[in-house]
């Protein structure tokens, strides 16, 4: 399959995943659509192309790439992509945030949802966990990789910087971290709340190889993941600053922090779905 055919396929999946996201959040009138829509293309690329994965889920994750979501509030995109890539039945997406569901508001292992390896939601913890898993892969002589996604606002948590220091110092070079750089957080723009200033310089000075990409452009995502992989096993960890548009794909949600954690009403749902083609069949 050539690249443009692959990208067409990924685009189709993304459209369906975005429909899943707005429908899930609308159904229970709670959840986080903005960041989920922004990261959809990245998740689809990872789970349908980039990662070596095993949908017959084992917590141990030996001989496969493993993924951690640190900014757990974008659970809708995580759940949709897990279901669409075969970890569990897409019908289960209907149980999102409801009583007795495996699809908790924020991802959890407690209900044993396939594909989730650690609880997240309280921010700042996922990078440390991913680094731990990467070290275990090395100890086990497992050559596969660890991927982790972080939010940009989340970088305000101190533990992130402890983890960044540790990974470089200990040459954890089998991990690809990605920052969802949408510039928004609950109370407004990251730059206004507590600016990251020159993030690239900061990360480089912490000893990471920094690469940059456009998280809403499949060519950019696939190229950057190739470049990231080429940089691995060189004695340094790799981090991808990935620009995304919060709310991407639904015009009235784009670029606004107001859609961080607000569900669409009935009218807004119809409007959103009219912009997103049903490519694989709704759940």
């Amino acid at each position: 399959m050539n690249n443009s055919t692959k990208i067409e396929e990924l685009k189709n999946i993304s459209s369906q995943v975005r429909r899943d996201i707005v429908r899930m959040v609308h159904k229970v009138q709670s959840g986080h659509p903005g960041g989920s829509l922004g990261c959809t293309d990245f998740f689809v690329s990872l789970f349908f192309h980039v990662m070596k994965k095993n949908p017959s889920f084992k917590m141990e994750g030996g001989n496969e790439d493993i993924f951690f979501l640190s900014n757990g509030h974008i659970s809708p995109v995580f759940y949709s992509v897990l279901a669409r890539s075969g970890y569990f039945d897409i019908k289960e997406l209907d149980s999102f945030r409801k009583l007795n569901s495996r699809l908790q508001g924020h991802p959890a292992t407690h209900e044993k949802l396939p594909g989730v390896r650690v609880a997240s939601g309280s921010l700042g913890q996922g990078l440390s966990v991913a680094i731990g898993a990467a070290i275990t892969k090395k100890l086990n002589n497992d050559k596969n990789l660890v991927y982790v996604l972080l939010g940009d606002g989340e970088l305000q948590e101190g533990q992130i910087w402890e983890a960044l220091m540790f990974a470089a110092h200990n040459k954890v070079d089998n991990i690809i971290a990605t920052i969802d750089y949408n510039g928004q957080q609950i109370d407004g723009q990251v730059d206004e709340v507590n600016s990251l200033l020159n993030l690239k310089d900061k990360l480089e000075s912490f000893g990471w190889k920094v690469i940059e990409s456009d998280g809403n452009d499949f060519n950019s995502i696939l190229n950057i993941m190739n470049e990231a992989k080429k940089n691995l096993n060189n004695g340094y960890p790799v981090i991808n600053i990935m620009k995304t548009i919060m709310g991407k794909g639904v015009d009235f949600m784009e670029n606004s922090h107001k859609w961080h954690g607000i569900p669409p009403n009935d009218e807004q749902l119809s409007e959103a779905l009219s912009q997103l083609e049903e490519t694989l069949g709704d759940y």
Partner: protein
Amino acid sequence: MERKEYTYTEKKDTRSGFGDGLYEIGKKNKNVVALCADLTGSLKMNQFKSDFPERFFQVGIAEANMMGIAAGMTIGGKIPYTGTFANFSTGRVYDQIRQSIAYSGKNVKICASHAGITLGEDGATHQILEDIGMMKMLPGMTVINPCDYNQTKLATIAIADHIGPVYLRFGRPKWPIFTKENENFIIGQAIKFIEGRDVSIFATGHMLWQALEAEKSLYKMGISSEVINVHTIKPLDKNTILKSAKKTGHVVSCEEHNVIGGLGESISRLLSENNPCPMKIIGVNDTFGESGKPLDLLEKYKLDPNTIKKAVIDLINNK
């Protein structure tokens, strides 16, 4: 069961029991890994570090990161033992333990030295007296506070075979060794040290020795005390505790911890639901500690044998 008087010939710190136990289990079980936050010497982890350098991880002064890394390392089958002071093992990293370890059901062994007031001269910033409470409130967390060097070593080895998160609490001061090296240590199973009929004394950690000392002078006064070591605060050995309380009808609990949130509180909940009886809780009375020598601190904060003895007498005299 004949009354036995416990004596000792040697004193050793319980943290050394941890260090030696960690080394033992590290030799046997290659999945055991150790993490430390810049306190390798204080936690007595040196031998593990020098013999198994590929399984030892120095994380620096970054305890939150250490807990997260430990949680991640379990994915793929490692059994991480984290080592730092009790204060930095609990209060400082409560949310990391809660979300990444306890709620996520990760097989991490949180090993905490310098617990309680007997840390001594460093003072209240380091003397945590709330850690048992914080840890026992986490669903799925096992909480163990061994009483001497031998028991700490045995507990350190035993927790490797227990699947699930564990909080293992031990201390800094040199303390009498009065248990056997080859004792059978079973998580969650309290140990009867002395059989008695008038009062049940339940003690954990360093306070077991204080209870045994109190028993000696009570015995001379004709009061027969049953002394039981509750090394595992969670899960609590309900059967042993209830059986003894039913027999004696009077209960005293002893711990080097705040009276709020510790062993005494767990026992009183058990008794009030199943077998209400007069009880006194010996512990630090909802205050912070201060600098001083361990034995002086134990006396000032009413964690000494005399205080236990007085509590028993008051209880029996219905005061």
